[in-house]
């Protein structure tokens, strides 16, 4: 006997079959773990071993003479920006419901995220010691 079960539509939007939220969630986990190491390393080197009195132009120029620290800083910058950006997106998703406000907040968020990424990456990559 085949039972024909009527599938009731509960009035919810049809799922969009997107894996975006899954990847965003995964990214937060992995970037979070990486950031602990990267940010702590940054903190120890720049604020505990050295400090702002020692760090000057020559210090940065010496650091950036090798690609290692540039890559380190670039990864730290990109992960921290994206991690923070995605966290803010989540908060907007949770708490900002009016369509217009949502659009405004997300536009501002993505614009600033983009500008900071470009400015930060440019500084790291284009820096040339005199």
């Amino acid at each position: 006997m085949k039972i024909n079960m009527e599938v009731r539509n509960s009035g919810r939007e049809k799922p969009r079959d997107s894996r975006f939220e899954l990847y965003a969630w995964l990214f937060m986990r992995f970037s979070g773990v990486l950031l602990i190491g990267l940010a702590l390393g940054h903190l120890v080197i720049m604020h505990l071993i050295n400090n702002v009195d020692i760090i000057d132009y020559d210090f940065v120029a010496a650091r950036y003479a090798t690609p290692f620290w540039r890559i380190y800083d670039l990864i730290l910058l990109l992960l921290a920006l994206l991690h923070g950006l995605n966290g803010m997106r989540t908060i907007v998703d949770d708490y900002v419901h009016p369509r217009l406000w949502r659009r405004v907040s997300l536009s501002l968020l993505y614009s600033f995220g983009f500008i900071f990424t470009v400015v930060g990456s440019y500084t790291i990559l284009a820096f040339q010691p005199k």
Partner: protein
Amino acid sequence: METRFKIKRFNPEKDEKSYWGEYDVEVEPTDRVLDGLHLIKWYQDGTLTLRRSCGHGICGSDAMVINGVNRLACKVLIKDLGKSITVEPMRGFRVIKDLVVDMKGFFEKYRSIKPYLITDTPPPEKERLQSPEERERFDGSTKCILCGACTTACPSFWADKEYVGPAAIVQAHRFLMDSRDEGKKVRLEILGDREGVWRCRTIFNCIEACPRDIDVAGAIADVKRAILFNKS
């Protein structure tokens, strides 16, 4: 012993907003909060409105906020709360009257995850068999009585009423982890959506709220894992 009940009252036909009603009741320490509410309704103020059915922690109709925490009124003893007890309707749902809330949306979400066995294969001669180990996987989630305590304790749900909520995810878990069920694809599609499991921020309020001691956050993590590895 005499106990003071502070109950959040609201009658939409009379009141603009809710107010606290205070009632002194003579109860036994071993009485349940539900007994206290009965004494108030039967002997002091018949207009006090609440839902209850079995009164023994099985039907799940008397979930409410008791001393700030989601509880079943029929499972909390007065001696564990002391002489002053506050009772409010569950948070996040529209209040219909006093302690009765509108659970329509809650059950819509429950239905949305298709809470019934889905199979494509023709039924065998007798029953669909399952080993005790296979049954064990979803043992916790079969205990759910749909009282709504977990969902209304969830800040993600308070913020976003479209979030499918922990109760519906536990119900989905019950079928997703069932070796006899063949509806995983359609269920995971719903739960993997924006208003599905990714709204869960692992705040763990649901675990504290559950009167059946279900590992709700664990069930949600199982579903996340199932979506991630696309298996269950």
